[in-house]
């Protein structure tokens, strides 16, 4: 039996972010996770992407692994063998039944941060307008999280204020040669016409949870191009890396290998009941309070079970993604780029003022230097030998673009069935089609000004859930009703259970939300820590 002040269910970004303020206040924290880890040895050996491609006759071990079924996943990170254990057993354990929805989650230490796309961005007051707090309330937490995880990005460009530049930032990565002319042209336009007003097309360097300077045990990125397949230097943030530091804290206990099945009241306290992942044994982890940080799908299932909310639909927000390819005229005549930083090089934001509510979209431009050209071959409507020859030429000169739409366009629902299955139904609002049409038109115009053309026929919309931006099932409100939470993530009527992950986000803007999930977990933990210490 544990005698923790707070039991944290989950060791992902939210759980880890909640643990630090509690420990700093001198509280005892017990963190539980299922601890699914890889069974085979890593195939990474420090070689960079190019060395691997041209010198390793067994490169399939790193790029594909032994299970070809992972090719069905759309995201490159979901296809990487290095991350395959991250998603293992999740759907089976939570008994998820998905319909038109890609339901992913993680039972691994560090949760989904193991395969995080690393996009960082603080929500603006406009993006927080339906939240029961303001940005100023989150700022100390944004600062704490950015200091802890290391965020690289520009503090002074057209997007930096929109991203947030009032927390510590490391210098951004160098821009890849393919992107330099585009960025230079954009900067010339800024010098000539001034910075874009909020709402207009704005472009800048993205913020990433990737180090450009050493931080603690983690080394800075050395541009090996293996971002999609596994970073050996730990330059990319992973919450699992923080577990070592947490375990060194005196008030911290970590129990790995336990899957929490439900949370119940026991003798005036709360207990997370869990089963052993290996032997199936049962155990209760008791604490004065329980923090649910098992990921949006996991935490929502536990919360709905606590509330006895069976056969009730709750909304599940996701951010639809429009993918398309760009090609600049300059890159057609330039030598192909083979080596570099494989995450997004430039970011853009744009308001679709033609549509009611002027929704804001956000996107990133990715190089293809760290991905396999086979991603393209199948999309070229030519016979395979021709498609391969033409694809091989275009591929290194192409810029892959992901454009995120706000969660208001998602129409997913989540339902806990009486039998214990978690049914997820995916869908998009009809209005998304109109928004996509406007976005393509506006972006085509804006990119044309920068000398970049959208490749005809290259646009595709992702399947709901593929981007793994899940949120908003138990939204925080000033006056929460049933299946909602208050500003401390507490479920209506249950004082000592706090949901601290993506489930409690009130709205989901197009901007990456993981940084805000972490900051919100930190914020809630600070409030709980202050109250607990104050009352002692």
């Amino acid at each position, binding site marked *: 039996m544990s005698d923790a002040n707070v039991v944290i269910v989950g060791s992902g970004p939210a759980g880890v972010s909640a643990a630090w303020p509690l420990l700093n206040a001198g509280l005892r924290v017990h963190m539980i996770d299922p601890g699914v880890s890889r069974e085979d040895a890593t195939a990474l050996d420090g070689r960079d992407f190019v060395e691997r491609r041209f010198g390793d006759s067994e490169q399939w071990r790193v790029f594909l692994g032994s299970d070809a079924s992972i090719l069905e996943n759309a995201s490159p990170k979901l296809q990487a063998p290095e991350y395959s254990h991250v998603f293992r057993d999740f759907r089976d354990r939570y008994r998820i039944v998905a319909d038109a929805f890609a339901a992913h989650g993680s039972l691994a230490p560090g949760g989904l941060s193991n395969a995080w796309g690393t996009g960082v961005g603080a929500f603006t007051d406009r993006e927080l307008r339906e939240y029961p707090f303001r940005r100023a309330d989150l700022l100390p937490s944004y600062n704490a999280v950015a200091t802890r995880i290391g965020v690289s990005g520009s503090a002074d460009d057209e997007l930096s204020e929109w991203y947030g530049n009032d927390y510590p930032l490391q210098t951004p990565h160098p821009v890849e040669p393919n992107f330099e002319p585009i960025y230079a042209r954009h900067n010339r336009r800024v010098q000539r016409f001034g910075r874009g007003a909020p709402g207009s097309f704005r472009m800048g360097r993205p913020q990433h949870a990737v180090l450009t300077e050493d931080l603690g045990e983690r080394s800075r990125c050395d541009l090996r191009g293996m971002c999609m397949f596994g970073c050996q230097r730990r330059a990319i943030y992973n919450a699992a890396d923080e577990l070592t530091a947490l375990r060194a804290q005196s008030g911290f206990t970590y129990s790995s290998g336990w899957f929490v099945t439900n949370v119940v009241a026991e003798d005036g306290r709360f207990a997370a009941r869990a089963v052993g992942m290996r032997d199936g044994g049962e155990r209760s982890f008791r604490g004065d309070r329980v923090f649910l940080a098992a990921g949006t799908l996991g935490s929502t299932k536990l919360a709905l079970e606590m509330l006895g909310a069976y056969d009730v639909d709750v909304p599940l927000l996701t951010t639809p993604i429009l993918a398309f390819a760009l090609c600049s005229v300059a890159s057609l005549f330039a030598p192909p780029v083979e080596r570099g930083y494989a995450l997004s090089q430039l970011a853009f934001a744009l308001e679709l003022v033609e549509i009611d509510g002027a929704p804001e979209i956000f996107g990133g431009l990715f190089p293809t230097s760290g991905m396999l050209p086979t991603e393209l071959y199948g999309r070229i409507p030519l016979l*395979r030998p021709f498609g391969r020859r033409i694809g091989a030429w275009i591929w290194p000169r192409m810029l892959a673009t992901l454009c995120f739409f706000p969660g208001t366009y998602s129409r997913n629902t989540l339902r806990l069935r009486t039998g214990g299955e978690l049914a997820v139904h995916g869908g998009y609002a009809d209005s998304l089609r109109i928004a996509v049409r406007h976005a393509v038109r506006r972006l085509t115009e804006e990119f044309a000004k920068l000398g970049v053309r959208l490749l005809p026929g290259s646009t595709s919309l992702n399947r709901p859930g593929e981007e793994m931006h899940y949120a908003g099932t138990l939204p925080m409100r000033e006056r929460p009703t049933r299946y909602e939470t208050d500003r401390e993530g507490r479920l209506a009527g249950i004082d000592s259970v706090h949901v601290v992950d993506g489930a409690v986000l009130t709205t989901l803007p197009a901007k990456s939300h993981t940084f805000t999930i972490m900051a919100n977990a930190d914020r809630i933990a600070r409030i709980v820590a202050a109250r607990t210490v104050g009352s002692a």
Partner: protein
Amino acid sequence: MLEARALQRYACGRRAPRFALRRYLRLLPPASAPLALPPAWWRIPWLAALFEPVPLLPKSQASREFQRRLFLVTLATELTPWGAEQTRAAARRSFASFAVRAIGCGIVELGLVPWRIAVHRLTWWPLRARR
């Protein structure tokens, strides 16, 4: 490259017509290439699976299975230093060379439209379930 040819044959179906085989053989390296397929490829589950007997499938599934196998063949050869070098060589061609080839491919493709339909039908035909 006995194994490469065998791989092709299985990828296309045991009784695939010769012209279809020739078409896909163009994806594969010459016999002199030392690293045409990953070493001990028969121990790689997804690659070895291509050598399993061709199942008899309903029409729609047979077509999909054919495309899947074809993609895996492409991937198998791409994921070798030989494949990477081929891709690099194609990528380094000048814009003029690329443009000429692209136009040439386009003309050939247009001419092949009726043939493509025929080839497609004939190549998934061996995988299709017979009544």
